[in-house]
């Protein structure tokens, strides 16, 4: 079997998994499950990145997302004691939501397919972009965004602390 075919198989497998996980994220009745399903999707995405020669991004994805964000989410869920067994986590406008999202999906996918049909990603390469080149770029051309993001993270950090901390008697 040619590599291309394998890739096809892998892609479809991943795609199905991700799609399923995603759907579960927004439908499951258990918040913890929802978070875990999200992990599923994210891991799928990471795998896709690998498939697309973006190992570094893939690792970052795994580390930051799965490792940090989702955990953060779980903490959030715990802290807010979201009642696990709650019968319904959805509000009364499910149908509306479904229609909207379906509409968006229909339109975008239609347009995209129409635009990119027949464009092939050649997977003949053996190596993707090296981490070094990414590092070079970030520290030369993208140094400012990098700096700014660090400020952003700092701000978010400070902000999160300020907001979340329980003030002693102050307010």
């Amino acid at each position, binding site marked *: 079997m040619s590599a291309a075919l394998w890739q096809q198989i892998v892609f479809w497998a991943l795609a199905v998994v991700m799609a399923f996980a995603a759907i579960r994220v927004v439908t499951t009745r258990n918040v913890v499950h929802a978070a875990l399903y999200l992990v599923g999707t994210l891991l799928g995405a990471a795998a896709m990145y690998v498939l697309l020669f973006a190992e570094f991004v893939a690792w970052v994805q795994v580390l930051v997302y799965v490792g940090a964000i989702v955990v953060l989410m779980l903490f959030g869920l715990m802290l807010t004691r979201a009642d696990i067994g709650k019968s319904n986590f959805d509000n009364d406008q499910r149908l509306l939501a479904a229609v909207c999202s379906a509409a968006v999906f229909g339109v975008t996918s239609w347009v995209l397919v129409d635009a990119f049909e027949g464009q092939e990603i050649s997977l003949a390469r053996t190596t993707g972009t090296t981490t*070094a080149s990414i590092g070079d770029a970030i520290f030369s051309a993208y140094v400012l965004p990098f700096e700014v993001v660090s400020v952003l993270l700092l701000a978010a950090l400070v902000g999160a602390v300020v907001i979340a901390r329980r003030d002693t008697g102050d307010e």
Partner: protein
Amino acid sequence: MQLAQSFIQADVDWHALAPELVMITAACLVLVVDLFVPRAIKWVAMPLSAAGIFATIAAVASLIGDERTTLAGSFEVDGFALLFKGLFALIGLVILGVSFHFFREGRYYQGEYYFLLMCGLLGGMVMASSRDLISIFIAIELISIPGIIMTALRKGDAKSNESALKFFLFSVLSSAVMLYGMSLIYGITGATQLDAIRDALAEAGSQPVITMSVFFIVVGFAFKISAVPFHFWAPDTYEGAPSPVAAFLSTASKIGGFVGLLVLMFVAFPDVADDWRPIFAVLAVLTMTVGNLIALRQTHIIRLLAYSGIAQSGYILVAFALIDPSNAATNSQAFQSALIYLAIYGVMDAGAFGAAVAFARRGGSYFIDDYKGLWSRSPLLACMLTAFLVSLAGVPPLAGFWAKLFVFLATMNAEVWWLAAVMGLNAVIAAWYYLAVVKRMFFDPAEDDSLVEVPLMLKTSIGFCAALLIVFVPGMPILSNLVERSTL
């Protein structure tokens, strides 16, 4: 070793980055100092950040007149950038002045607040120079996220929390939408630098997918600039946030969004303008009309200003509905009208918020009915607020009129008569509710005639805006020449 080399290789024009760097240092300095000063004098953070902003202004001034490009063309320092860096610094100062008493008396985290505020301003400054999708994205986030946090600073107040959450959700949502559009643009053009994108689009020509991606990006920004129908969050958030923060959101943050939009639309996407121009026409009309109509019914000054701000963005959006790459004159006319409008809008809106804060400070309230007889309670405040409102209404000779005039000119010049007519009618409706406030302040008798004393800090910062409004009248040529020189 290699790493070190790459650092050396990276030839960055640090001077061009000076304003941002100064800002960052100042912000961090504020944060650090705040850690060590006792609660009693935490307010020093404010003068400190003020000093920082002045330093930034100095840095900006040092760059006036020269065109610099660095970071592989993704960062530009030109008239446009400098104009807005200056504007952000200016607005920053005003907001600082407005914030001082508010936060000092209101038991807030002052140091953190000022830090966040500076971060937000920094975002705006970066935005002014960004010529690259990535940095634009980062900049817009850097404007929004501190905004969100500041909104949540009134921790005890459920309303405030709620508005913070709303703001947060919408902001993140809009970022997602915007990013989706950006990703597609990257996919179509294979570049993130605006010039490159422009060239690519020029040869790609008009395609549905391009229109759609641009549209997604526009939607993303429409949130930030609270254009109808993406404006829902704004009034609630403004109301819930600490008023100085509302001032920040309605001026710096909104202008930041507009700057990004300007850069994108005039640098990256003009060649496919025919496809997306109608979007802006619709947005503009909706925004100004709906904003004005709802504002008619407001009883809360902050909400009123929120809606008036929405309506004002409608006028600025008109400029985008006029973009026409094939006609340089019309194009630059539209562009400049937007610039002038933004500059003037920033000043008068900040002033108006400041006045609202000043009135609400002691015993006062945010409800317009309580403004009755303000004239006798504080003539100065009443007069200054009137100046802002009248200017917002666009009545000559105050600056607001010139802003509208230039938009009118651009519109007529592009011969989009119907749009001009719509603007005209809106101007009348707008005057109506601004006058309603003026009426209460001057015509109605005061219910309690205790004097409203305004501390010096507030007085100066509000008065500064008011003075600017009047200085614009003879100074109009100066501003318009300035704008003329700040091309992209």
